[in-house]
């Protein structure tokens, strides 16, 4: 089912462990991302969400288990094949990661110029179309330093979809955005996914994303602790999920970092 390239799941992670040196980051991750859907990976800061995206992008390798993207197991891919596969992926980085020495136009055009032989007039039209899709056609000649946080995120989004990827990954697309920009970006994610016929994975801790996604995985302490549709997640009685959804400061996720007895430390 996974070798013919036409499985229903674009991304399939099986029993994946990952560690940075000695420090275990992820344990026993089983995750499926069906084609055409938007899947959110939610969880607190530092729970290993971003690492999940880096595993799917092949930027880091799992210490155990298998990551399958578009029917191909990443472990068996040579460097060149990995790069071919990445051409079908688009990624929006946490703070945009726009190239600071190029203007908006060149940022979006970058991948087209580097990876394709398209003639410049065609690239120009494509870039303007991508910028139009995120509402920033008029900002083509601005430098990244002249953009607001929300605009930078939208340019990065236009850049991520430059070559019409089949898989779009978003690393904290909503972090630090004002409510209007947040609504704009979240609507864009849904629209672009459906218009491009793509599959999207959003790593986030914003509950806002529950409105636009089809499925949610909750990650805590390096493992997946719950999964379901947004409705299921919102109605569950699981204490961790409740704490996350209701934004309670204390609960299964403790407010205090593990510490010796308070009175003892104060010498009382």
């Amino acid at each position: 089912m996974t070798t013919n390239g036409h499985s229903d799941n674009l991304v399939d992670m099986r029993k994946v462990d990952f560690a940075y040196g000695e420090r275990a980051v992820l344990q026993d991750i089983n995750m499926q991302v069906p084609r055409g859907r938007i899947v959110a990976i939610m969880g607190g800061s530092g729970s290993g969400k971003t690492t999940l995206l880096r595993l799917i992008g092949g930027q880091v390798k799992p210490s155990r288990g298998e990551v399958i993207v578009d029917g191909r197991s990443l472990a068996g891919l040579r460097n060149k094949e990995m790069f071919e596969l990445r051409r079908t992926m688009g990624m929006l980085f946490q703070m945009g990661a726009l190239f600071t020495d190029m203007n908006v136009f060149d940022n979006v055009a970058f991948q087209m110029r580097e990876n394709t032989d398209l003639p410049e007039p065609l690239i120009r039209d494509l870039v303007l179309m991508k910028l139009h899709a995120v509402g920033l056609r008029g900002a083509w000649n601005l430098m990244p330093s002249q953009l607001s946080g929300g605009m930078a995120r939208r340019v990065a989004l236009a850049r991520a979809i430059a070559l019409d990827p089949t898989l779009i990954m978003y690393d904290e697309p909503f972090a630090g955005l004002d409510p209007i920009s947040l609504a704009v970006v979240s609507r864009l994610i849904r629209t672009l996914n459906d218009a491009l016929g793509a599959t999207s994975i959003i790593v986030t801790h914003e509950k806002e994303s529950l409105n636009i996604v089809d499925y949610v995985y909750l990650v805590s302490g390096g493992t997946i602790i719950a999964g379901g549709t947004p409705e299921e997640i919102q109605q569950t009685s699981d204490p961790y999920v409740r704490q996350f959804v209701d934004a309670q400061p204390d609960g299964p996720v403790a407010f205090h970092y593990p510490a010796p007895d308070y009175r003892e430390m104060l010498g009382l």
Partner: protein
Amino acid sequence: MKSLFSALAGFLRRLGAPVSGALIGLGQGTRFLFAMLAASGTCLRRPGLVVREMYFVGVLSLIIIVVSALFVGMVLGLQMYETLQRFGSGDVVGMVVALALVRELGPVLAALLIASRAGSALTAEIGLMKTTEQLSAMEMMAIQPLSRVVAPRFWAGFLSVPLLTSVFNVVGIYGGYLVAVEGLGVDAGTFWSQMQNAVDFRLDVVNGIIKSLFFGAAIMLIAVYQGYQAAPTAAGVAMATTQTVVRSALIILGMDFVLTAFMFTGMGS
């Protein structure tokens, strides 16, 4: 007995840790060098990438190179003339200035200036690109940062150093001329002919340029490597930038001694 052993073991460990650390660093640097050389094909296919970086590394360093060279040459002319004059040989000042510049001061001072002006900038730029995930983003676009970002900067710097060194030599000699001939009244014909007689193109000028090639390779390798392996934080980039300047300076001075020993000893005999 047991505590003696553990003390001894601890001593050996403390002795070994910095040594193995240095060796690991050397190994990583070498692997980085080969990976970058392997990724340098893009620079040949698209020389525009290198030329663009040469503008930042080379052209923008011109002012500091020209001004420094002028003053170094002027000071040399002044000092040498004062000393030589005591022995009645003030006329050879042109030769002394030229030899000092093309053999030693030109390559070394130009390299030190480029390391602090351009090397540190390269480290900071690459380090910040890493910190802001620009390198990661490039990787995810199926573009190798080593071939698109690192290699063009390395080669641009490598090519710029001998060119800037030549400019330094020429301007320095002109500074010496200004002081000696225009200021102190040495005969212009003597100044130039003494220089022409004593300075050998192959042995002095070319050797000086060869030195600068070595310096250029060392500075640029240190600069791009420090930037590429910098910890992706503000403190990490600051640390890497400092390291670039400090290590470049030490390596330039150390290499200069070795190269001089190879090139210029036994020439008088």
